[in-house]
């Protein structure tokens, strides 16, 4: 099968090529501004995952796996959770579990708010990678032999 036959039509592919970077960027924006405007790790992570799912829908799974393979995604997922737990445990050293040990922020400043942006980043790793893997697992199943059991 030739490269251009996989996935959807040319129109979809072209539009995807134009928009997918913007979607990814928007996701990163939502994550990084989570502490000063609506959004945050979960919402941003979903948008990041959607950009990869977008590639997969338009170009087929081979191209999508070239950008992010399932293995890389699962590494990112575990890393996100580990960063989150580690930050929480480090807080114990400063007095309390989940304690904010960085400088407290001022309203409406991007580089402020102590640990919240870091937590948001960890959550976005976890959610983005997790949703992507979830999508792969739900899409990739094949019904091999019908009525095999009964």
């Amino acid at each position, binding site marked *: 099968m030739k490269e251009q036959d996989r996935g959807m039509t040319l129109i979809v592919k072209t539009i995807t090529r134009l928009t997918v970077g913007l979607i990814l960027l928007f996701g990163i924006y939502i994550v990084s501004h989570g502490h000063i*405007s*609506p959004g945050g790790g*979960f919402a941003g992570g979903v948008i990041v995952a959607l950009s990869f799912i977008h590639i997969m829908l338009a170009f087929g799974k081979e191209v999508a796996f070239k950008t992010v393979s399932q293995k890389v995604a699962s590494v990112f997922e575990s890393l996100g959770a580990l960063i989150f737990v580690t930050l929480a445990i480090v807080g114990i050293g400063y007095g309390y579990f989940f304690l904010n040990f960085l400088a407290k922020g001022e*309203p*409406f400043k991007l580089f402020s708010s102590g640990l919240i942006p870091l937590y948001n980043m960890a959550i976005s790793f976890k959610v983005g990678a997790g949703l992507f893997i*979830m999508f792969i*697992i*739900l899409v990739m*199943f094949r*019904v*091999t032999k*019908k*009525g*095999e*059991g*009964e």
Partner: protein
Amino acid sequence: MSVYFLCLVLFSIGLYCILRKRNLIKIIIGIIITEYAVNLFFVLIGYRMHGRAPIHAPDQEVLNMVDPLPQALVLTAIVIGLAVTALIASIAIRVYEKYGTFDITKIRKLKG
């Protein structure tokens, strides 16, 4: 009062769907409806008339905001619901692979 009633109706629809339907996918939809009825109820309980979104913005007084706590909690509940739904859906897919059907009356390897 209508909030309570409508959420009860939605919850009952979900419950009916879980109890009465034979298709695995429809049961999953029933679970989702039940969950969302509870989530909707939680959000609506925190709402107040003509309240505004609980977002602090420059040059705005903190007045007449809706209760932000239920919204945060419902977000968590939705995430949990997403995880449960994905898990049950993948189990249903595997069941279909094994049994070749979504009909629960035909999926009966376990007795009792």
